[in-house]
């Protein structure tokens, strides 16, 4: 448990550094807010609408596939830790596990999901 004290200190220093930077910036910067400063940046043109635009729907399928393979990666961790004690049998099990998911990747590839149109 005590090894996590270092993680906690790291977390605290990380958060503290950001807060300190913001505080320091607030101290030394001039403060002259006016409306035009809040406009979306549109190189020398008058902006139309705001900066929140609707993103392309194709991004979503990539996010979904990322979640699936992220879950797969999670299962790799305990396998990798225990692999030294388990040997060939565990290797075959993991090859089956990955092969099944490989079908999914091949399916996505074949359907052209991975291609950006």
């Amino acid at each position, binding site marked *: 448990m*005590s090894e996590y004290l270092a993680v906690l200190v790291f977390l605290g220093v990380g958060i503290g550094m950001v807060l300190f930077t913001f505080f320091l910036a607030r101290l030394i910067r001039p403060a002259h807010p006016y409306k035009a400063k809040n406009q979306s940046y549109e190189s020398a043109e008058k902006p139309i609408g705001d900066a929140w635009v*609707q*993103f392309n729907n194709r991004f979503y399928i990539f996010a979904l596939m990322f979640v*699936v393979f992220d879950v797969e*990666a*999670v299962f790799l961790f305990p*396998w990798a*830790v225990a692999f030294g004690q388990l040997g060939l049998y565990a290797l075959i*099990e993991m090859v089956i596990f990955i092969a*099944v998911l490989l079908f999914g990747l091949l399916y996505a590839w074949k359907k052209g999901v991975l291609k950006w149109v």
Partner: protein
Amino acid sequence: MQTDTVQLVFYLFSFLIIISAIYVVTLKNIFHSAIFLVLTLFGVAGIYILLHAEFLAAVQVLIYVGAVSVLMIFAIMLTTRLASREIKQSNEQVMAGIFICAGFLLASLGSFANTVWRVVDKPLPENNTLTLGQLLMNEYVLPFEVVSIVLLAALIGAIVLARKEGA
């Protein structure tokens, strides 16, 4: 770590979870709510570490903080104009909501009070990720392989649904 340090860290993380969870349900901008939900889930990972469930904490950070939040933020950004819109966080059902929440609180407090909490008398395994890996590869190998089928089904289902919409 001493017990009181652990207790202090527990209270810190609980404070983080509760405050950010309140922000999730009260903020007017749904995008900000999603960001605070990430903070809530991260706090839960901290609680898992305190419970000696290191692997679960890693899974929490990888899957919930990493992947599921990306999915939610994408869903918000992909929906037309949702991110910049101010939404009302309450409706005319407030009173019914209060009653249901109070009832749920009473029911859970009652069951907490009546439960005999069993404590493991054996010492916990030193390296529980190792134990988990061994169990996954020996006793629970069939559920483990079924997980890959479930993931495959999820992947193919997502592709089929997304393709139909796109074409």
